């Protein structure tokens, strides 16, 4: 029984990782209606930036803020320089750019900071809590994920800018007619997604350790989480992320065994797409053609 409880708590902790990355995926999807495959590698790159600033002597939270701001700028620049010429290209062309970005970020991260696994500091302390069931960092990073969720929710729900961004992604032509600067909305979406990714990276790194491929496996689970919860819904993505963490642990420990844990993420993706493509909390988007 203690084992079951421990598996659930450990699943929630891992799920927190998926949830934070899933939020970045939702952000980019809300803003551009694409899923950026390079999201994970960009987040890893940002995390290395943070480590660089910390090693230069900046206090943790200062490095945190600087990294988030820089990542935002990086996201905007990528949209302006690389994605803008793709605006009228078919979706597959964008996907090609995403994969190219993935390779570029992965390789340059390794070239700049080398591939040796590195420890990343946590601002929340490392004491085991609840008799070793959860660590201080796991609790802290979950709180950070929830704060980010709240910010994203409020941004999209209650601000004019958030509304304009959703409109720009949903119907660019009409948005432009009513005065929304569609191009900049997309750039803003990229920037925000990169910033959220940076936060996710910095929260994940103390747990899984920092190396250039840190996000490889995580992105897959995060994608499963985002789809499960609904890729149009920030809250859904977070709930989906946590659920995937718990489902994965329980199924791995008690049902399918550890060898099929990874397959389970893929099964979730396929099952959601077949049964309920909008996910648990997402809205079905109907486009008139």
């Amino acid at each position: 029984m203690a084992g079951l409880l421990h598996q659930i708590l450990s699943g929630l902790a891992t799920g927190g990782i998926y949830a934070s990355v899933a939020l970045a995926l939702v952000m980019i999807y809300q803003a551009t209606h694409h899923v950026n495959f390079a999201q994970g590698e960009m987040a890893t790159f940002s995390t290395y930036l943070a480590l660089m600033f910390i090693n230069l002597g900046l206090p943790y939270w200062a490095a945190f803020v600087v990294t988030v701001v820089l990542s935002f700028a990086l996201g905007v620049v990528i949209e302006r320089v690389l994605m803008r010429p793709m605006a009228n290209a078919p979706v597959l062309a964008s996907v090609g750019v995403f994969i190219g970005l993935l390779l570029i970020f992965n390789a340059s991260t390794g070239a700049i900071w080398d591939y040796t696994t590195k420890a990343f500091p946590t601002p929340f302390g490392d004491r085991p809590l609840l008799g070793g069931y959860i660590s201080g960092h796991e609790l802290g990073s979950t709180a950070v994920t929830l704060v980010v969720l709240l910010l994203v929710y409020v941004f999209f729900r209650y601000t004019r800018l958030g509304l304009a961004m959703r409109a720009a992604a949903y119907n660019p032509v009409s948005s432009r007619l009513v005065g929304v600067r569609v191009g900049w909305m997309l750039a803003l979406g990229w920037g925000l997604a990169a910033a959220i990714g940076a936060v996710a990276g910095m929260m994940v790194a103390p747990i899984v350790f920092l190396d250039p491929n840190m996000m490889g496996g995580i992105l897959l689970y995060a994608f499963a989480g985002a789809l499960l919860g609904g890729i149009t819904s920030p809250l859904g993505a977070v709930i989906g992320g946590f659920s995937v963490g718990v489902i994965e642990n329980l199924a791995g420990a008690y049902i399918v065994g550890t060898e099929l844990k990874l397959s389970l993420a893929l099964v979730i993706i396929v099952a959601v797409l077949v049964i309920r493509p909008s996910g648990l909390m997402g809205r079905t988007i109907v486009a008139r053609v």
Partner: protein
Amino acid sequence: MIKRRPLLGGMLAAGTVALSGARARAATPGVTATEIKIGNTEAYSGPASAYGMIGKTEAAFFKMVNDQGGVNGRKINFISYDDGYSPPRTVEQVRKLIEQDEVACLFNDLGTPTNTAVEKYVNAKKVPHLFLATGANKWGDYKRYPWTIGFQPSYRTEAEIYGKHITAATPKAKVGILYQNDDFGKDYVNGLKDAFGDKYDTMVIKAVSYESTDPTVDSQLVTLQSAGVDVLVTAAIPKFAAQVIKKLADMAWKPQHYLTNVSISVGAVLKPAGLKNAVGIITGAFIKDSTDARWANDPGMKEWRAFMDKYMPGTDQTDGNTIYGYAAGQTMLQVLRQCGSDLSRENIMRQATNIHDFVPATLLPGVKVATSPTNYHPIRQMQLAKWNGAHWENFGDVIEGSGS
């Protein structure tokens, strides 16, 4: 226009024949009067990229050899490609090494799945596939793959040594195994089966696997803990080994921990995981640990340190991969020296399988490199070592595995 084509084709074909004829006459591929080409594939990127340091060390080592005049009057041209630890890319790179670069031999290619992908091809081409940087037991199969030879003690031998120690030290142990779900991890399960024999089922109460793509192994550790395991054997690559050590501390769970020798690098595993968290871990060692004060005045380690300072300045000297790479490089050099002026592939292979108790500078005292045409396990000895918070402290005798 139409008539010119066959003519052109004929000329091309004639040219190709002439070219391949010239190549066939060169008796020793990859060897000229001034140069020996040695090929290597390494994980400079990808999930196992911490090992990239081995390739970097070897490149630096051969540069040193060249600066000192080379070997047999020739310079070594060490060509090392990144395969990202991905078998399809290994196939591509090894083909390139053999067919375009025309290397004399392959040396210390990294990884079990990666080398598995090319062993048939390399043996069909009869290219020496020397001293693979993997501890899989299969590289000792000289009957099926006479051109492929391993290097370090096999994982299975290593696990057998752990099993022997567990039986002697804690006969009533409840053993749990965490292993990577591939040949590497399964060798440890098999090695423990070798050691425990028919007692395996009573000794090992839980064995769980992970995939190298899993984000964490937390759930597996929880499963092992709740099963009541008190002796844990971990067969995991560095990133996951670091996670295990840290997570055990987070969980406040302290089983007697045996950790694969693959992941004992102080710089790449213990430091990220927390040096204190690793106290008490037992492993099998065959190379000297640079952080161990016992080797401060050791001639072998002094030689290595001088090399590191001059040829790899700024590199983390606590990273055991550099010490391993140096020993592997020295073994390759020994083979080339033994070859003398006959650097044909046949002779390189003959010399590689006739090494008599060669002692590289960075191996533990008592551990030797010894091969024969019927023993393709160059290093078969290990000494157990315990992490005391500052360095790996060797204890007990050097144990020789069965080297099956």
